[in-house]
């Protein structure tokens, strides 16, 4: 990929659509007054307080959590509770499983969404606009419509509790396809594809040397959004998996239904299961925010 980027003219990086939006907004932007800051601080407190309190509760004992008033500051039991959650509530296995599942889903979704998004954005073929509409329409279908047959097939195949059961159905995404299509319409100059074609490049070469380099920023953002969604997927995993081979959400569901009747351990589990995504937000928050806003303007 690195070498292919060198051979490309700078045109591919084009003007990212985000920039134009920012310029349009900047003209009318008024400075925020003190009242706005106060209200924003309140919103921020509501956003963060439940997470901070999760950590506080995870650092206490079950007995302390049963008392009034509830604890407002950290205690000394955090590591003990984290360890109990890791070992006894299966959070350890669950974390590794979820990293694997979410990674597979992310790679599949980004790859397939880029290919389909490219076709919808830049290639002319019969029924393309109808097929794009169908793709968007599929976002309306609730996952509940698929789980009964999926469960029966899974039982026939003996795939209960196996990770591929929760990976395969989620390998593609209508949102991702639309997201990549909207990005590539603007970010990938059509002349570039035509020039490559005149040079006799095959479709695969064009994808590898022209489409992927141009799509890379959007692929990264889609990857982050997909990873968050895959990490938090709930309905199908709790039907397909159980405590023997859980994902994080399955393990949390078991904790919630009284598997370990200790609230401080339950909170430690919730904290563990959220921590990787919080770290991702700390590192890539700006890109994730940008991705959601980018998807919104065009969606």
């Amino acid at each position, binding site marked *: 990929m690195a070498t292919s980027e060198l051979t490309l003219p700078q045109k591919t990086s084009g003007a990212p659509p985000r920039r134009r939006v920012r310029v*349009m*907004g900047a003209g009318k932007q008024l400075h925020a007054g003190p009242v706005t800051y106060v209200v924003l601080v309140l919103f921020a407190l509501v956003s963060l307080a439940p997470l901070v309190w999760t950590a506080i509760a995870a650092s206490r004992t079950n007995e302390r959590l*049963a008392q009034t008033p509830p604890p407002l500051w950290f205690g000394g039991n955090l590591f003990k509770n984290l360890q109990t959650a890791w070992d006894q509530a299966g959070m350890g296995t669950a974390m590794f499983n979820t990293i694997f599942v979410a990674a597979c889903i992310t790679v599949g979704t980004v790859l397939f969404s880029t290919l389909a998004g490219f076709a919808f954005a830049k290639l002319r073929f019969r029924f393309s606009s109808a097929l794009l509409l169908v793709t968007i329409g599929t976002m309306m279908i609730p996952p509940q419509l698929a789980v*009964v047959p999926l469960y029966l097939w899974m039982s026939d195949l003996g795939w209960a509790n196996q990770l591929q059961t929760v990976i395969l159905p989620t390998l593609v995404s209508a949102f991702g396809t639309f997201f990549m299509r909207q990005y590539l319409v603007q970010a990938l100059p059509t002349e570039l594809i035509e020039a490559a074609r005149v040079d006799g490049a095959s479709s695969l070469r064009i994808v590898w040397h022209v489409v992927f380099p141009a799509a890379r920023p959007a692929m990264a953002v889609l990857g982050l959004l997909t990873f968050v969604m895959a990490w938090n997927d709930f309905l199908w995993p709790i039907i397909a998996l159980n405590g023997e081979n859980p994902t994080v959400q399955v393990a949390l569901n078991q904790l*919630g*239904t009284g598997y370990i009747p200790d609230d401080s351990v339950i909170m430690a589990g919730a904290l563990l299961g959220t921590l990787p995504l*919080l770290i991702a937000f700390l590192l890539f928050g700006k890109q*994730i925010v940008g991705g959601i806003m980018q998807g919104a303007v065009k969606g």
Partner: protein
Amino acid sequence: MKASPYAFIAPFFVVFGAFSLVPLLYTAWYSLHHVQLSSLDQQTWAGLDNYQNLLSSDFFWNALKNTFSIGVLSTVPQLMAAIWLAHMLNYRLRGSTVWRVVMLTPYATSVAAATLVFTLLFAPDNGMVNWVLDAVGMDPVNWRESDWGSQLAVSSIVIWRWTGYNALIYLAAMQAIPADLYESAALDGATRWQQFRHVTIPMLRPTILFTVVVSTIGATQLFGEPLLFGGVSGTKGGSEHQYQTLGLYMYDQGWIVGNLGKASAIAWSMFLILLIIAAINMLISRRLRKS
């Protein structure tokens, strides 16, 4: 070369077809059969039995009603707060990116993790919420047992997780509003509030419609929040089924009671409701486009 566009879109349609479209049709088929979890091999024709069973079941209508009321309780305040938040984020702020990331943080928290925390915060005896209510001199609320109290608690989880996300969507739309609209409104002597009311809101209308549709789809399938809020007996949606949603009812009938045929019928009822909503939405947006 001619075939390649189809090759590029094939993975999406193959996986979607195999794991969504075909199952969707099979779900319709199963909804017309008796399918029991305990004897998966024996599927006998049931005609419309499962649907008749639903229509005459109080629990189905209760779940439908709860889905609707929790949907309204969670969507309306959420979207209003999101517009307000977006309006503030649209000012020129110090550290604007930090504010945005902070508001989005609840989105990083899974349904399960968020619900486990909120269940403790809303604990009737020793939870934070009732302690605060007591501190400001209000009566404690039984967030577990009462109808509106438990529905409000479940809704608050949805509101908490999604307000920031929707605010970002509104913010993106606000930033795309041409500045000269505000300038000419200001020249006409419009106050900030009047500008918000008569420029921002009308320009946001398509985006508002979009978020209403997405939130409605989400509300129709609400499942994880009421399930985990209920603890050990979560699939019943509370002792009196006071927050059992359609999604929860489907899971309860399918995997706890073990009647997968009936669960399929519930799933298709959900889909029909969504199709009706989609039709209404199309009518509204057509009207909007005309005016």
